[in-house]
């Protein structure tokens, strides 16, 4: 039991931190620019593919730096020549713009790299078990993923709280118009934030790509969960995104380990529900089986009960 708890925690935190790398950029972009970026997960995918391509020429490690920078530049260009042009038509136009962009990126990736998963490998240097606990090994690459995402989180945190740029961004988070009135170059800040947000997503892509299969559907499968994280955490709240990412990572991982169904709970008071009863499959579905739906259940509940999210403090 203890080993299940420990390994589920490790897996859950890892998944949660990965979600946070993506959600942090998404929530920053949303709170500054009011744009709910539907293409955010696509930049994560681009990161993985760029990393893969670079790794084929010069190995994994250079890709870890080059790919996020490249994707960040692509993101900045998208903001400068795409979003900014659409901006004057309002938020709905921006939303639709990113929506279309997500499809374009997916098709583009399929045209360039094909529809099959690419062979993006864990670097040899980290291809060994990091430690053994209760006879279960934990791969070094996963430990690396965990450390990288924690390091990125700390770097982001100090950038936002300790630097001048961070101050401006924080101010723009809560009072974007005032910041503009104070004479800061708000469009430039927007472009930077969008670029850095995309770069962070790409970094997540490079560190997740070898472990989680680099393939054209990876954006579409992760995208919806990101919105859950951002909404549950509170739109525009970095701390909220952090808590929600970890919570969802842990909930999803632990849910897999729980074999209890509604029928079991009813069974405790002596009633028996078999699968022939009305909606029998529903009563007998275990928590493990419904694990993939739990985040969305959470999304719906949060929207009804606490529309601002866990830590959100501002109307959009």
């Amino acid at each position, binding site marked *: 039991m203890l080993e299940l708890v420990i390994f589920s925690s490790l897996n859950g935190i890892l998944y949660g931190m990965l979600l946070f790398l993506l959600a942090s950029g998404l929530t920053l972009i949303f709170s500054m620019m009011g744009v709910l970026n539907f293409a955010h997960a696509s930049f994560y995918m681009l990161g993985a593919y760029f990393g893969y391509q670079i790794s084929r020429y010069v190995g994994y490690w250079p890709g870890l730096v080059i790919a996020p920078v490249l994707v960040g530049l692509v993101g900045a260009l998208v903001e400068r020549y795409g979003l900014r042009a659409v901006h004057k038509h309002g938020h709905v136009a921006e939303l639709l713009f990113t929506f279309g962009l997500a499809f374009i990126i997916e098709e583009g990736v399929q045209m360039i790299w094909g529809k099959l998963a690419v062979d993006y490998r864990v670097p040899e240097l980290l291809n060994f078990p990091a430690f053994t606990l209760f006879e279960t090994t*934990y791969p070094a690459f996963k430990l690396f993923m965990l450390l990288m995402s924690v390091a990125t989180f700390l770097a982001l945190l100090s950038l936002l709280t300790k630097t001048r740029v961070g101050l401006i961004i924080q101010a723009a988070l809560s009072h974007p118009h005032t910041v503009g009135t104070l004479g800061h170059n708000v469009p430039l800040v927007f472009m930077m934030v969008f670029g850095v947000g995309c770069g962070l997503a790409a970094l997540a892509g490079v560190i997740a790509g070898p472990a989680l299969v680099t393939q054209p559907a990876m954006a579409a499968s992760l995208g919806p969960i990101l919105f859950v994280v951002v909404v549950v955490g509170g739109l525009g709240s970095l701390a909220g995104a952090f808590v929600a990412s970890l919570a969802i990572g842990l909930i999803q991982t632990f849910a897999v380990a729980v074999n209890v169904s509604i029928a079991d709970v009813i069974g405790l008071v002596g009633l028996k529900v078999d699968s022939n009863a009305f909606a029998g499959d529903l009563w007998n579905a275990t928590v493990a089986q419904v694990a993939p739906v739990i985040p969305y259940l959470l999304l719906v509940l949060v929207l009804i009960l606490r529309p601002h999210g866990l830590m959100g403090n501002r109307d959009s």
Partner: protein
Amino acid sequence: MKNLLRSALAGVAFLAAAFGAQAQIKIAYVDPLSGLQSAVGEHGLKQLQFAIETVNAKGGVLGGQKLEVVGYDNKGTPQESLVQVQKAIDAGIRYITQGNGSGAAIAISDFVSKYNERNPGKEVLYFNYAAVDPSLTNDKCSYWHFRWDANSDIKMAALTNYIKTKSAIKKVYIIGQDYAFGQSVRKAAREMLGQKRPDIQIVGDELHPLAKITDFSPYIAKIKASGADSVITGNWGSDMALLLKAAADAGLQADWYTYYAGGAGAPTAVRQTGLDHRVFQISEWHTNVIAPEMEAFEEAFLKKYGGPNGQRWWYLRLKNQIDMFTNAINQAKSAEPKAVAAVLHNMRHKNALGVEIFMRPTDHSVFQDMYISSLGSGTKYDEEKTGWGWKTVGVIPAADTVIPTTCQMKAPT
């Protein structure tokens, strides 16, 4: 770029087919060609392509007509399968083949039956090379559906017979994909283990979403915690390869009783687990079942389509399908699906191993020898350049795989 080129080539081929070469007999291959399961889909397409090229190189059928395969991407879902089958029919194709996923298979079989009822004289046949849910040849059987693989219950009976002889097995974990096929594997495993080895404890029984999971670590942690010494799974495609990969990462020491550990990517993952001859599969053939005709054929395939990972031939059943199909056309002296079906209906065939297999007329299911094999070191041929290959540990003669069917087949009038 490769894909652009490929679609361009496909376009040219299509034009060529449209203007002129009317004599082509086309087969629509409806399987996943995108997404997580596409590795398996592409591998199947290459094998079908090669089987057809072999037939064409020998002069085709009916004294010169050539066969042609057209790939349709069903994205692994029943809904999209029907869209693609309709597209194929609209393009004038009368033969459909599909294998990956019983959910899609049941939908296609039903669709084809209804279509044929409404369109007499324009019948379409459905050749199933791998979807093994028992209902396809029992309560949901159809005259227009032909299956070349042994159904899931037959495979489970063989695996559990083998498990019966292994007294070291005490705790078994069952894991599968949450859809028709995964559920029937789980049900059969529970029932048959209960009869043959009531002393075995089933310590886990799990269904996970089909082709969605990229990291199976949470499931492996659970298997590990259950103390299972053996795992039974019907997983295929990415769900098999990634499950084994996660097992390798966690260093899980258990025996695996599988249907599809030979599928694309899975042998590579087995090699990573280091479980030498502890991962078993049940299949109608593997590369180390050596017979002259099949060996030469397999070598030729590897040379032409093996690719950088050295992917070998896997589906003897797909070769059986194409060989029986072409024989049926020649015997019927017609490529009309209805005439071909009448010949296939009760056909006997000597396959590339030199062994006779037969189509049972009551449910259109092929019966053939089945092999239980384990993957490990010291074999003549290896898989995916891992140095490990399949070794036979048990053979079940075709006659012993015949189980009754409830199929009430309605032959056309």
